[in-house]
Structures are given as C-alpha cells and as structure tokens.
C-alpha cells in the first residue's frame, strides 16, 4: 500500500500549475471482465459547508486517498462505471435523471476531457434504479454536476491510466513515453499508434484491482469549459427523441384515469361499467385508488370513455376550501417578529420600522410532458419506464404496493419532458403499475390528461412572507443603517416524501448549532436561504401548516418567493437611506462575487438610464447552489402594453429587456448553463407576473395552458443577455434552478418602480387572470378535443 498525503482541495486549486503542492491522488478500480471497466465510488458522505447549500455533498473528501484507504473493504456495488468498448467508444450510465437540464451532455464532456477522447465517442445513458446506490440516485437541488463531477473524473482517469498501461505493455515501453490524443495512443519514440478500442480488452483484468490516479489540472482542460450543444439535439429536432409515451412496449395500450371533481377525491364506484366497456376501442376498465382507469386502443378513446363515465366519488382533501380560507389559515400561523425593543444596538433616536407583507399563491409545477409511465406488471414481476428523479424510491414503493420484492421490480429511467421538481415524485410510475395490475396484469401506457395536472398534480405551495426591517442613523459614519432584518415565511406544507429530504439531512453531518430542533423543511429552508446583505440581526424563518395539498418544489422551493419579498424590502430600505437601489445594494452586500455579478448586470444593462413614465428598471441578486446570480430587467407597465389583446392569454406588464449574470463556479458547459438561465428567467417572470392556480370550492379551476398562464412568447423580452462570470473555483455549482429567484425579484422591483404601487399578492395577475377564462368542467374532468382544426390551418 502506498501512503499518500492528501492536500486541501482549495489549496491545490490555487496552486494549480504552481509547484509546492502535491496534486491530489484518487483511488478507483479496474474491474475484472472482458472489456475495460473503470470505476469510482459515488457517495454522499461529507458535511455541509458554511455557505449553507442544500446540495453540498462534499464528494472530494470521499475520494481523498487516505479516506479511501481506511475504507479498505469498499463494496464495488457502490461504484459508477465507465466502460471502454472495442469500437473505441466510452459508455457511462448516469445515476441521475435528464429532464432537459443538460446533464448527459455535461457528463459526456467531463468524461471526454479526463479520458482524452472525442466528445462524440462518449455515450451517456440514464441508469435504471440501482438500489445499492440508495440516496445517491436522486436528482434534485440542482446538484447533479456538483455531486458527480469528481467521481466521474476519477473513473475516467482510471480508464485512461489502464489504457496507457496496456499500451506501454504492447509497445514494451514506459507509459511516460506515450501520448494520448483523441482516443489514440502514440509511442512518441517510434510513432506507432493504438486506439482505445484496440486496447479495451487487454486493459481489462481478470480480477478487480485498485488504481491510483491524479486528475487533470484545470489549466490543461480543452473540453470542459467550452460551449457545446446538447448531445440529443439532433434527436430532439427530428422527433426521434423518445419520451415515456413514445416507447414501443409490446401490448402497452394507452391508459388514462378519470379523476375526482375535487382535489384528491377518491372513487366510490363506476356506475356504468358495461356501457364504458362497450365503447369503441376500450379494452378494459378498473377502479384504482385515484380514480377509474380505462385502457383503450388510443388515448382519444380513453378521453371519450372518461367523458362518458358516471362515477360516484368520496370527498376530497380540501372540500369547501378556497384561496381565501387557506390564506387565513396561513395568517393565523405566522410567526411573530422580535420586539423592536430587543433589536441589538438600536439607537433610540431616529429609528424607523418598515414592514411588508406578501402572498404567493399556488402554482402548478407541471412540465409540458404530463405525468406518464409505462408499466408491465405480471404475477411475479414488474417493469416500469418513466421519467423519474428518485427511481429507487419508486422501485421500493411499487414493490410494496404489488406485494413483490424489490428485485422483482425493474425501474427504467426515461428522459423526461421537463421536470422542475415535478418528477421527484413517482406518482405516475406507481399509478401505472397499479393500473397494470388492476386491469388484469396487462401492460399499460399511462398518461395524465393535461387537465389533471393543475387540478390534481403537484403544486408550489401557497406562502405568505412578512418582512420587517428596522433602520436608524449609523452609529459610526453617516447615513442610515439596517439594525434588524426579519423575514417570516408561512407556507402550506411542502412534501419532501420523495427522498430528497433524506439526502439533505444525510449530507449535513454537522448541522449548524440550533438546527437540531427544526423540521426537515425548516432545516432545508434555513440551509438554502441566505439574504446576503449586511443588515444587522438577520433572521429568516419558515413555519408550515396544512398538509392536505400535493406540493413539491418547482424549479426551486423557497428561494423565488423569499427573494422577491426580500429584494422589494431592499428597495424600500434604499429609499429610506435616500440611495439608488444599485448603490445601496453594493454598499451592503457581504460577498464580493455577488457584488461583481450585480455590477455586471448594471453595466451591461445600462442601469439608471432614463425611461418613459410607466416603464422602469429593476435589479436584484440571489445566492444559492454554490453560485451567485444577479438580474436586471426593464418592464413596461403602460396601458398599451398591459392591455394588449391576445386571445386566451394574460398579457399584462411586459418585461422588455433582461440582463442576467451568474457566477456558478467552475463551468462545464457554458452553453448549457446559459440555456438553464434562459429557462429560469422564463420561470421567474411567470412567478412574478402571470402563473398561478386558483383554489375555489375544494378544487383548482385551471385545467390547461389556456388558463394556467405560464410565460409565453408575448411575455418574454425580445432580448435576453446571459453573462457567465469567470470563476477561479475548481468545482461546479448548480444551474437548473439558479435562474429563477433573481429574475422573479428584479421583475417585482421593476414593477414597483414603474407603477409606484407595492403589490401584496403574487403573481401580480392572480386576481385579474380569473376573468381571462371560463373554468372547464369538473364532471367530466377532462375537456373534449375540438374538431375544427382544419379551419385553423396557418
């Protein structure tokens, strides 16, 4: 055994290319087999960092050679593996899900970089449920790249090492005399060459063996950090990219569920079963826990059958409730502020208290691909195909429901048509399995009707946010200072039963003092929210009530709402101090990276330019996911814009310009990162301006895109700039959710500056959007498909 000294990773980063630091060495494996398989451990051990990140598994620590050595009996089942094939390609099964965030592309880049192989020769697919990975196969909190970066690099470096050794053997020379370029190994002395494919078999071993490697210096990287298009771009634009409902699984007929008229209502009985069974195309009908399932030749015939069903229902979970009753419940549960008399160091003369209070309404987190899953359940086995971010939990739950062992259930992860947190839950996979069994162990392609998504699907919980800031003349120097900044969020309970909560808590080995008594969601709230301003005594707290709703995260959990409220208060405080909002923020921001991001958007966006009445700029920051963001928007709230007449739309104020900056640490694929910021921007303006669902009489009124007003082309700015700031960090931060909070906040701030009014309810269109549509029927629960399409060709 060699003993190697491991250095602190940060030190090594700074010392990259400089002598005096030993490079970190990592341990991995070459597995015995017929072709080269290099492996490294993927583990979640580690501790939370001081900057309070939810998704902070400190992977590098696990790979510290010392640790690895003490853990001599490493179970190889925990390994992630890179396979070198005889055709010269490398393949890798990523134990994460891909829902559009670009992780298969960035993972391929990381492998190509470390292995020295052409990017197109790397094939990344999604791993099926691997129970042995336990908490480590969950996609959430924008942590994929962060948590897999080092392990994947180690595996790739091991593969490269083994190929070099095999080549050295063949050439009868030292590995040092070899050069690797794009998957070809050259003997520099003789000019002879061998490809990775030539060596794939002989680089494999008869037995598993440990291999020690060093990773590339950042300065040597030629693929990581360069802009690349998505690996599936061609499939996506030719229609060849398969989602769950596009899979051709033998016998899996379209299946849809007739759902209750009120939220979470359950079926009592289908009264006209034989009439439904006699309908054209219908192959089977069965009662399941969430409604009446129908299996038919086409989804169109499922829809027809659902519309014809006469079902009696049990009550739902929120019978009779409405937006206003739930709001009242939240208001009753709001936590108090600290009495002003207890604010530390507060001067008695000239102090002022500012209070703001906001309501953030329910929003639907549904993706464009509705919940969908294929299931083939037999008497003693089950196989499921679905977009799933937590496949192991799905596997366990399906096994339990069907009375099978976990090994009898195969869960395949299919690329999802968007997730935003929605696919952290496995409702669709479970329902598909339940339908397959209930219909008589026949294969099904289960899809939710669009109408089911906002009405019965996952929601971003309703939240109130109260902020109080106490200002007074500064004790030292001039101007006014904030002595206390308190934010109290009260929320409908966020459902963390998808396993993400366990990931967070398992990651946080040493909870900061005082967190011990908090609930899971309160812990996550405290760990994710960081105000970022030097505002004296800062506290941000969450209280939760009411778990009757189907909630979850939605491209972020708490941050957009919390940040919108906080940045609106920052603008109030700037006014209190008689300062420009930019100048004020720069004065009180604690962190240099955040200031740089803010300065960047101010400069690129020409902050402070004169604008016509009814239009304005807004500026905001956010800090999370091991990165910082800043956003500047311009908004047009003039009547001509607000009252644009577009059918089945909420037009409203328009964001006419967006400038976004992100410092995400080490960037793997700047083009992918930019794409995620563009997407997050669209979500941010939706959250502030247009997108919400309305609860009335125990059900949500929205049933499709003509009444759930997610951002559309008429809402986006004609131009949006994203600036990726250089970073000297060597580890990547998260991207999937990072674009939302600063955008939502900048948009809200711009709105207040343009209109001179402080909204109290978000989205701003919540009360007016009701008049933009007539709710679709609840019985039947799905609308008919129109027939006039040929008259509307264009």
């Amino acid at each position, binding site marked *: 055994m060699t003993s190697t000294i491991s250095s602190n990773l940060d030190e090594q980063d700074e010392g990259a290319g400089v002598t005096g630091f030993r490079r970190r060495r990592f341990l991995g494996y070459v597995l015995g087999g017929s072709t080269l398989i290099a492996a490294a451990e993927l583990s979640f051990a580690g501790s939370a960092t001081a900057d309070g990140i939810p998704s902070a598994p400190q992977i590098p620590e696990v790979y510290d050679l010392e640790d690895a050595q003490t853990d001599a009996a490493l179970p190889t089942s925990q390994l992630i593996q890179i396979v070198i094939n005889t055709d010269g390609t490398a393949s890798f099964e990523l134990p994460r899900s891909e829902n*559009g*965030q670009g992780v298969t592309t960035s993972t391929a880049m990381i492998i190509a970089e470390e292995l020295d192989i052409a990017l197109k020769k790397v094939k990344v697919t999604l791993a099926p449920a691997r129970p042995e990975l336990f908490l480590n196969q969950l996609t959430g909190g924008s942590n994929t790249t962060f948590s897999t970066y080092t392990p994947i690099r180690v595996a790739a470096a091991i593969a490269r090492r083994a190929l070099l050794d095999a080549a050295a053997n063949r050439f009868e020379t030292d590995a040092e005399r070899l050069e690797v370029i794009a998957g070809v190994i050259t003997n520099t002395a003789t000019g002879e060459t061998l490809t990775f494919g030539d060596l794939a078999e002989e680089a494999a071993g008869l037995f598993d063996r440990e291999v020690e490697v060093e990773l590339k210096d950042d300065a040597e990287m030629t693929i990581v950090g360069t802009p690349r298009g*998505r690996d*599936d*771009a*061609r499939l*996506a*634009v*030719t*229609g*060849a*990219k398969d989602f769950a*409902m596009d899979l051709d699984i033998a016998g899996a007929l*379209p299946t849809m569920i007739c759902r209750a008229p009120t939220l979470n209502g359950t079926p009592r009985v289908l009264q006209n079963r034989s009439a439904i069974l006699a309908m054209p*195309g219908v192959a089977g009908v069965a009662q399941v826990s969430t409604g009446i399932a129908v299996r038919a*030749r*086409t*989804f*169109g*015939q499922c*829809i027809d059958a659902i519309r014809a069903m006469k079902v009696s229902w049990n009550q739902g979970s929120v019978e009779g409730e409405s937006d206003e009753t739930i709001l009242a419940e939240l208001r009753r549960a709001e936590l108090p502020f600290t009495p002003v008399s207890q604010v530390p160091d507060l001067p008695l003369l000239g102090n002022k208290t500012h209070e703001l209070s906001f309501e953030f309404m329910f929003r639907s987190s*549904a*993706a*464009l*691909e*509705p919940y969908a899953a294929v299931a083939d359940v037999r008497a003693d086995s089950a196989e499921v195909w679905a977009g799933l971010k937590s496949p192991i939990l799905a596997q366990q739950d399906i096994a339990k429901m069907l009375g099978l062992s976990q090994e009898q259930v195969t869960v395949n992860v299919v*690329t*999802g*048509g*968007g*997730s*935003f947190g929605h696919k952290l839950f496995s409702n669709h996979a479970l329902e598909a399995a339940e339908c397959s069994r209930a219909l008589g162990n026949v294969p099904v392609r289960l899809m939710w*009707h*669009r109408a089911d998504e906002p009405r019965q699907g996952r929601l971003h919980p309703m939240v109130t946010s109260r902020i109080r800031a106490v200002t007074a003349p500064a004790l030292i120097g001039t101007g006014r200072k904030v002595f206390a900044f308190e934010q109290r969020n009260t929320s409908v309970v966020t459902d963390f039963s998808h396993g993400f909560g366990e990931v967070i808590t398992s990651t946080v080995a040493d909870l900061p003092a005082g967190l011990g008594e908090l609930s899971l969601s309160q812990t996550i709230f405290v760990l994710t929210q960081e105000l970022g301003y030097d505002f004296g005594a800062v506290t941000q707290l969450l209280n939760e009530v009411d778990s009757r709703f189907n909630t979850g995260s939605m491209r972020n959990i708490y941050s957009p709402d919390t940040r919108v409220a906080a940045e609106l208060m920052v603008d109030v405080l700037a006014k209190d101090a008689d300062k420009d909002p930019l100048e004020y923020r720069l004065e009180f921001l604690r962190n240099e990276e955040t200031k740089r991001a803010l300065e960047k958007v101010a400069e690129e966006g020409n902050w402070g330019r004169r604008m016509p009445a009814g239009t304005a700029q807004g500026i905001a920051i956010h800090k999370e996911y091991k990165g910082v963001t800043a956003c500047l928007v311009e908004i047009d709230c003039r009547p001509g814009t607000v009252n644009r007449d*577009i059918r*089945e739309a909420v037009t409203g104020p328009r964001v006419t310009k967006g400038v976004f900056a992100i410092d995400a640490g080490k960037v793997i694929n700047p083009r992918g990162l930019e*794409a995620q910021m*563009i*997407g997050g*921007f*669209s979500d941010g303006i939706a959250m502030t301006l247009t997108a919400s669902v309305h609860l009335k009489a125990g059900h949500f009124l929205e049933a*499709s*895109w*003509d009444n759930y007003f*997610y*951002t*559309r*082309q*008429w809402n986006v700015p*004609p131009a*949006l700039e994203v600036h990726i700031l250089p970073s000297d960090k060597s580890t990547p931060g998260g991207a999937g959710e990072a674009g939302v909070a600063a955008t939502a906040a900048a948009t809200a701030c711009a709105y207040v500056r343009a209109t001179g009014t402080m909204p109290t309810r978000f989205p701003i269109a919540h009360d007016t959007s009701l008049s933009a549509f007539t709710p679709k029927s609840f019985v039947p629960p799905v*609308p008919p*498909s*129109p*027939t006039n*399409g*040929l008259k*509307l*060709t*264009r």
Partner: protein
Amino acid sequence: MPKQTFILNGKSVTVNVADDVRVLWVLRDILKVTGPKYGCGINVCKACTSHVNGKAFNPCAVRVGDLKSTDKVTTIEGLATLDGRKDLHPMQQAWIDRDVAQCGYCQPGQIMEAVALARRVRREGRSITEADLDAIRNVCRCGTYTRIREAVVQGARAMGPND
C-alpha cells in the same frame, strides 16, 4: 370499421379506425409516429403542431374522418426528407445551431410552427417581425423562448423556395 386514408410524410397510409378519433392519436397510438407530442389535446399548447398540405395544423383538433385521401400530412419526421433531401431542414439546423432544445418535448411542434410561419411571411412577401414571434403560441415549459426566437429568424433566412 371505416378505412381512413391520407398521405403521411409522402406515403399514402390507410388505417381502420372510427371517423372521430383525432389525427394525433392515429399518428401516435396506431401508426407509432411519435414526433407530434401531446400537451393538452385541446389545441392550446401546440406541442402536436404538424403540417397539412404545407400549412401548420394541430392534429389533436382534427377528426381523422375529416382528412381526404389526398391530404398531405407532414410530421416532424417527414419535414427534412420531403423534397428528397437527406439531411436536416434548415429550420432544424437552426435549432441545432442555436442549441434550442432543453427537454425537447415542445420542439417538434415549435419547429413545425416556425416553418409554417416562414412560409406564411414568404407568401406575404415580407420577413418575420417581432410581432410574428410574439404571436407564436407554442408553450415551452422549459422556457427556451429566447433561443426559439433567434432560431426562427435564422432558419427562415436559410430556407429556400421549396422549404
């Protein structure tokens, strides 16, 4: 059961299915042509956008019985190959150049809509305006709108008279 005949991506197809089944399901569930996506079934999300006789239409809102045997339906799968071209349609290429797709679910519909828009403005003897882009109704829940706008303009410029 009635026989339904129409031209799909250049070839005549016949299916046995009732008149009132919407074309989207005939394509997806019976013919296994899965490029057109379901996002609403009521002609609002535009994920299913395809072409009939060269113009954009939404197969979720058309009964298969209303198609004539001479009607030419083109889905994303048939867009590139129609004129004997082997590779990509210029609009698809623009989508790749601009790396538009995220999850990709909406993108077949977006591209078919964009091609139809480009053809429409060409018929009207003008080029695409911001107002045209604002009027595109296709939902992209991943929020790729900015890149879609860029790609539509680029793709339209690259389209030849037969595209």
